[in-house]
């Protein structure tokens, strides 16, 4: 690096200070809540001194140790958070599998068709993608009540799959556009049908794009609140609506620590996911942007 490119000291200092501040803002709330989830409410919300939350003075007085798992046992066992966790796993598993099956087929066709209707199909999908999902819910409810579909997990799964489709189609469409057309067309010259060409030539090379899209489909299903809270019954709640229901009932009972423990429990898998798939997430976020 030449001398001209070197930064002045003041700029270097500013960069370091700015980055440190951003790291604090981005990460500190999570660390604070993780640490606090092992305390009692008197420490996590300390009127006397905020340092109590660090050292757990009240926790030591109430439980004899400066760390306690009361919040976790209360949430997972007493309030049956494990049920919601199981529901979330089922919902995410099926939503991701079904969305991607439908999505890869559709997006492949859209990327290989040169007709104008393929373009309009994508535009309609874009409009659907922009609509807040909650605006659709009042359309679902009367029908779901009439046919007794309301409240069940499969209903939520199929609704989330549909809401996921526009996004999945757009994302996979841009990945398939990057796979050369010659690949499947030469297979068809050799006598494959369109589906055989897709099955034997495209499927083996599409996994990087599919994995990235799967991550975002997963996030959409995992993080959804608007739809799941309104169309799942109390017994079938997934984790996010369950946490919201903690706020209504347990906050008054003084068991806000259940909610804190549940919040940490729902965030932990996301941490692990970002750790393993950081590269895919970054590439997925930029896929639409850098090209469009």
């Amino acid at each position, binding site marked *: 690096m030449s001398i001209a490119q070197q930064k002045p000291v003041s700029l270097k200092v500013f960069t370091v200070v*700015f980055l440190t501040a951003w790291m604090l803002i981005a990460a500190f709330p999570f660390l604070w809540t993780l640490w606090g989830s092992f305390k009692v409410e008197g420490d996590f919300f300390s009127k006397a001194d905020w340092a109590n939350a660090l050292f757990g003075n009240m926790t030591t007085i109430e439980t004899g140790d400066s760390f306690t798992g009361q919040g976790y046992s209360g949430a997972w066992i007493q309030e049956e958070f494990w049920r919601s966790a199981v529901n979330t796993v089922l919902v995410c598993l099926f939503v991701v599998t079904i969305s991607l099956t439908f999505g890869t087929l559709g997006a492949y*066709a859209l990327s290989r068709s040169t007709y104008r209707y393929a373009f309009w199909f994508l535009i309609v999908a874009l409009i659907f993608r922009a609509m807040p999902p909650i605006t*659709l819910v009042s359309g679902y409810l009367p029908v779901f009540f009439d046919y007794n579909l309301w409240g069940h997990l499969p209903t939520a799964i199929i609704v989330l799959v549909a809401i996921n489709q526009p996004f999945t189609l757009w994302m996979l469409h841009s990945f398939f556009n990057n796979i050369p057309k010659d690949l499947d067309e030469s297979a068809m010259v050799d006598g494959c049908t*369109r589906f055989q060409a897709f099955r034997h030539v495209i499927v083996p090379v599409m996994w990087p794009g599919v994995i990235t899209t799967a991550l975002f489909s997963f996030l959409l299903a995992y993080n959804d*609140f*608007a739809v799941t809270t309104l169309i799942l019954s109390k017994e079938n709640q997934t984790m996010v609506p369950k946490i919201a229901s903690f706020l209504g009932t347990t906050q008054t009972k003084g068991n806000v620590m259940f909610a804190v423990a549940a919040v940490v429990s*729902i965030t932990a898998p996301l941490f692990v996911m970002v750790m393993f798939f950081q590269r895919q997430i970054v590439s997925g976020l930029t896929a639409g942007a850098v090209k469009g």
Partner: protein
Amino acid sequence: MKHKPFFWFVLPSSIAMLLFIFLPIVSVVVQSLFVEHEQVIIESENCGPFGCTKATSVDQEATAALRAERPLGQFAGLKTYLDRGHLATSEVAALWRSTDSVGEFMGRMFNLPLYKALFFTLTYTAIVTPLTIILGFMIAVAVNAAAKIIKGPLIFFSLLPMIVTPLVGSLILFWMVDARGILGASLQVLANDPSLSVKASTPLMWIMLMVYGVWHAAPFAFIVYYAGLQTVNTDTLEAAMIDGATRWERIKYVVIPHLLPLTTFIALIQLMDNFRVFEPIVSFAASAHATSLSWAIYNDLGGETRQLSSAAATSVLTIIGVAILLSPVIVRTYRDFTRKV
């Protein structure tokens, strides 16, 4: 691709979207034009030894029959749209006549539920979107300048506020600004006011919601800009340097023009996302101070009495709002496509 295989390939996806996105939209529009049947009231006279009393009761059978006969309810036209909970035309007209200044008129108008929600939604969108872009850009430039070894961890931690469930992320912040939480207590010390509470103050609640909005969305802008910075043409940068451009001039004339198309992309995505602001209002229990269009729908649908027509009317108005925001994107995509063909 020929028409027939195309049809079979897109069929599953189309059916899903047709049944669960398109038909619900139609159903929402239809519902918003109808209201539920009123209950059939029967009046009966009970005559006893002490005179006659009139009693009214609900004729359950007749009500049920009426509902079964016409399940949509009574046709109401645009009545739901114009009532007090939505566009409130007569209330607004009355206000216009009775208030003296425009300021007073606006102030009273924003007490009406829909205008209150719309005002917050638009303010939130207008403030959070540019702040997100600026903060995201600054983080991207700073991370880009950092040593290679720490870039990975920097990106990891920067992603967290965006990846975490919105409801959960806003709860975490909410607990910290609670009067007994670490930030809330620090604010009290800073402001030297032990009774200061974010929950009780409308301006502070608005600021908190927007801080959350920027915190949640900045990582997205950061990642997009960071990827853009990797593709800045180094030859142009060097040429600018040889011509004597200062650091700031290089950013202004080389880097920023290179990132401009990305800014449009981020701005459009953010406009759409911010327009549907919802979860933080639930987490912060902020509905007394700030409501949004999405929250209004949720509130109509979530209670004991599901007000489907009211929710449907708000949904239609929200969809119209989104359509207005989205129209530039569609025009641009259409132009790109026609250029390509």
